[in-house]
């Protein structure tokens, strides 16, 4: 192998695999989204061309718009809460005494390391109608929560989902931001203090600018991750939620395509999600590429 072709040979296996497992499905998805899948196709007839029909159906179907709005709202609420709690805890962490800080970090690490499905079963158990400790505690505290079903109403369904998602996401934010905060130059902070800057002013004018790049990355990642929440919604729906009223984009596409067999419309919805993600990801990629140059 020549000097020049050696690096190409080295990336070839990775490129070939990505092309097969992601590139080909991507092309196929574009084609799928332009095809019609009905009852006849489920019995083996070749799919018919639908042009932009699937997209038109999707865009005029109020069902999708409700799901999209719900997804975006869920994403912003969760990303916002996660970020606010994470930043608050990271700031407080620097002010805890050493043993407490280590204990808190151990706890966060546990929550972070928990596999999603295991965390989901535990939280389902905690919120269980009959044997859940949450209902027991609230009843002890004076409410009447005996036999209360948390997943039946969409609002309380999403409350539970939010608690779980935030619980799982906060540790990453705390550790990342805490690491960034320890990098803020001490002498600049001291100089600002000597010049009479209060705690708030030091935070706004010294700390925030110093950790700005990390803040941006954390917010972006959080938004992207919370846009694609699937497992939590799927398992909570199985545990008793009403799917129709609680679908987010991920479970919507799944129900439409894998469960319902309408691959054309599902593919069009998936394209929508793909574009949404790429638009949101662009700033992150630009930031990482700047580092590259």
């Amino acid at each position, binding site marked *: 192998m020549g000097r020049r072709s*050696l*690096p190409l040979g*080295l*990336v070839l*296996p*990775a490129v070939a*695999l*990505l092309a097969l*497992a992601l590139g080909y*499905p991507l092309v196929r*998805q574009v084609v799928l989204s332009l095809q019609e899948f009905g009852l006849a196709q489920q019995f083996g007839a070749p799919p018919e061309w639908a042009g932009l029909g699937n997209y038109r159906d999707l865009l005029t179907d109020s069902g999708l718009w409700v799901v999209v709005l719900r997804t975006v709202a869920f994403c912003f609420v969760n990303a916002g809460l996660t970020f606010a709690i994470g930043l608050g*805890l990271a700031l*407080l962490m*620097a002010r*805890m*005494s050493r043993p*407490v*800080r280590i*204990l*808190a970090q*151990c*706890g*966060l690490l*546990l*929550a972070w*390391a*928990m*596999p*999603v*499905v295991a965390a*989901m*079963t535990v939280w389902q158990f*905690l919120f*269980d109608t*009959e*044997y859940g*400790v949450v209902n027991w505690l609230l009843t002890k505290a004076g409410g009447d929560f005996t036999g209360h079903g948390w997943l039946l109403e969409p609002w309380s369904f999403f409350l539970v989902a939010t608690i779980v998602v935030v619980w799982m996401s906060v540790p*990453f934010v705390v550790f990342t931001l805490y*690491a960034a905060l*320890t990098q803020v130059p*001490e002498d600049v*902070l001291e100089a600002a203090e000597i010049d009479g800057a209060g705690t708030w002013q030091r935070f706004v004018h010294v700390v925030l600018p110093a950790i700005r790049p990390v803040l941006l990355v*954390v917010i972006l990642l959080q938004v*992207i991750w919370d846009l*694609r929440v699937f497992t939590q919604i*799927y*398992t909570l729906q*199985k*545990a008793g939620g009403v799917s129709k009223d609680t679908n987010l984009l*991920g479970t919507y596409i799944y129900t439409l*395509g894998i469960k319902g067999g309408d691959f054309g419309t599902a593919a069009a919805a998936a394209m929508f*999600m793909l574009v949404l*993600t*790429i638009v949101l*990801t662009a700033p*992150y*990629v630009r930031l990482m590429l*700047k*580092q*590259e140059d």
Partner: protein
Amino acid sequence: MARRTPAPVRVGADLVGILVLLACAFPVYWMVSRSFLPRNEIKGEDPVLFPWRGTLDNYRKILGDADFADAMVTSLSVTLLTVGVAILFAFLAAVAVSRFRFRGRRTFILTLLLIQMIPAEALFISQYKMLDGMGLLNSVIGLTLVYVASVLPFTVWTLRGFVDGVPRDLEEAAMMDGCSRTQAFFRVTLPLLAPGLVATGVFGFIQAWNEFTLAVVVMTDPAKETLPVWLVAFTDARSRGVDWGAIMASSTLITIPVIVFFLIVQRRMVSGLTAGAVKG
């Protein structure tokens, strides 16, 4: 920011710290402690805080369950295969990106960054159709194929950082001493990369072991479920009375390897995702 903190602030911060510990650790404690409780104590009027009269019955039940064993075998096969293939492919690509300047290098890096962000939900419809057409639904190979693709970007990115960290001078010195380029690589660079390969492999293991979305799409046959898919089906209440003790025992069993591995790579996970940004 190790600054002197006024006493009241410190006490307040410590209180929050204790609350954080409780809020994070309690669900984990609940899972483990309930897994040792007999059925009648789980379903008692008031929950018991500590499993004084603990039993291993739940574990006996789960470990004797043939479906659990099947799911364990599937999960282990898919996970180990994914890690093996991903590490090998990513390693080759990482060496190319780190040690060579070639045409398409920048495009390759850009593509990796982009696809790392693509959610499984945005492609699983057509991946399902593709695997269906290839006869690879409900197969370890099929699931491994999509898993490798989803861990590869991060794996290349992380390993490339490790390869960057091995100074070229070392390789060149070995070549001066009479090694060929290949020999220098295998005798000098590769041993220095071992910790990086382990860390990256562990990361891939956690990813594949925990993955749910693609597994539930690809493994539709109950006999071919991975552990996460099996656990969710097992928890699904409506078909039979929920056996919380057994569910908590199996959740604990699934969690243990992850916690152990997680502690090994935790530091790298923080720096991996934001490395560029932290350095500014």
